[in-house]
C-alpha cells in the first residue's frame, strides 16, 4: 500500500524545503491539506459540478 508519505520521504532526500516541511508537524499538516483540497477540487470539477 502506498501513501503520500512515501513519496514525500523519497523526494525529501534531495529537497531541503520539502524535508523541512515534513520535519515540522504544521508543515506536514499544510502539505497534506493542500494536496487533499486539490484532490477535492478535481473530484468536484470532474464529477459533481452539475449536481449541486
Amino acid at each position, binding site marked *: 500500500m502506498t501513501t503520500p508519505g512515501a513519496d514525500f520521504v523519497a523526494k525529501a532526500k534531495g529537497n531541503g524545503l520539502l524535508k523541512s516541511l515534513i520535519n515540522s508537524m504544521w508543515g506536514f499538516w499544510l502539505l497534506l491539506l493542500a494536496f487533499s483540497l486539490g484532490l477535492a477540487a478535481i473530484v*468536484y470539477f470532474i464529477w459533481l459540478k452539475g449536481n449541486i
Partner: protein
Amino acid sequence: MFNFMIAGVQAPIFLLVFVGFTVGIVGGFIGVGGGYMVTPALIVFGFPGYMASGIDMTHIAGKGLVSTLRHRQLGNIDWTLALSMVAGTMLGVELGVRTLVYFKNIGVAGVVLLVTSVVVMFSLFLYTQIETRRSHRQLKALKNEGREIGRELHTSSLPKFFQSINLAPIVRCRTARVVVSMWVIVLVGVVTGFLAGFLGVGGGFIRVPALVYLVGASTHIAVGTDLVEIVFSGGYGALRHSIEGHVDMMAVVFMISGALFGAQIGSIATAYVRGPAIRYVLSYSLILATFGAVMRLLYVLTGQKVEWLSLVAVMLTLGEMIFLCLFIMSLLYFARRHKRGAWVPDWVKSLVTT
C-alpha cells in the same frame, strides 16, 4: 454513473465506495460515525437531505459493528463504561430532539443549529489541540531523556475532579482502569446525548473527548467504548429511517463495501500510535468541520446568494475526508518505518509505538 432508483439520483459508484472507505478509516481511528462528513457529502452527490441522513445512519450501523469487533479484539472496549452510558445517552438524545423541535417551531432552527455546531466543535478543537500539544511536548521530553513511555499520556486535570465526586453507586471500570461515580457517567451520557440529538449527529466527536477529559479513560478505550454507543444509536437510527423509507439500500451497499476495509484499517492503526496521535486527528477533524459549518452558516446568512461560499463548504467536506484519511495512513506508514529503524520526522517518534 449508477441510477439509484429509490433516491431518484445518478451518482458515480466509486465516489460512494471512496467515501465509505475514507470515513471508515477515520471512524475506526478516532471512534466517530462520521455523520458530520458523510451527510453533507451525500447531499453534494445529489441525494436529498432526508435520504442522505438515512443512508448515512444505515452505513454507520454496519461500519460501527465492524470497528467495534476489531476494537474488541484489540482490548479497547470497557463494557461497564459503555453500558452505563447508554441510558444517559438515550435520555439526552430525546431532550436534544425536543429542544430542536422547539427551535423549529419558532422558526430559527437552521441558524441556531449551525451556530451551536460551530461553537461546540470549535471549543472542543481548542481544548483538545492545546491539551494534546502539551502532552506531545511531555512525550518528546520523556523520549529524549530515554525513559520508558506508555501508550497514553494526557495532562488534563478534569478527570481528577470528576473521579473525586463521591456519590454512590461507585463504578469500577476494569478495562479503562477508572473508578468513578455512576452519576458522572450518566451525566456525561446525558450532556453528550443532548448535543448529539440537538445537532442531529451520532455524537462520537463529543463523546470521545468527554470520555478522555471528564471520565479519565485512555484515548484508545474512549474510541472503542464510543463505537459501542455508535452501534446502538446507528442501529436504532437505521431502523427508524428504513421504516420511513429514507434508505436507498444500493447506496448503503456501495458505501459499506468501502467502509468494511476502511474501518478495519482505521481500527488496526490505533495499535500503532499513542493516545495523543488519535487526539490530534480528532482535533483536526473538528477544526475542518468547523470551517465547513462556518461557510454553510455564512451562505445561509447571505440569503444563499454567494455561490463561492457553498463551493468552499463542498471542497472542505470532501477535502477533510481525504486529508484525515491520508494523515492516518501516513502515521501508520511512519510507525512501520520507525519500527524498522528507518528515518521518520522528529515529531512522529513520540506519537507512534515502538
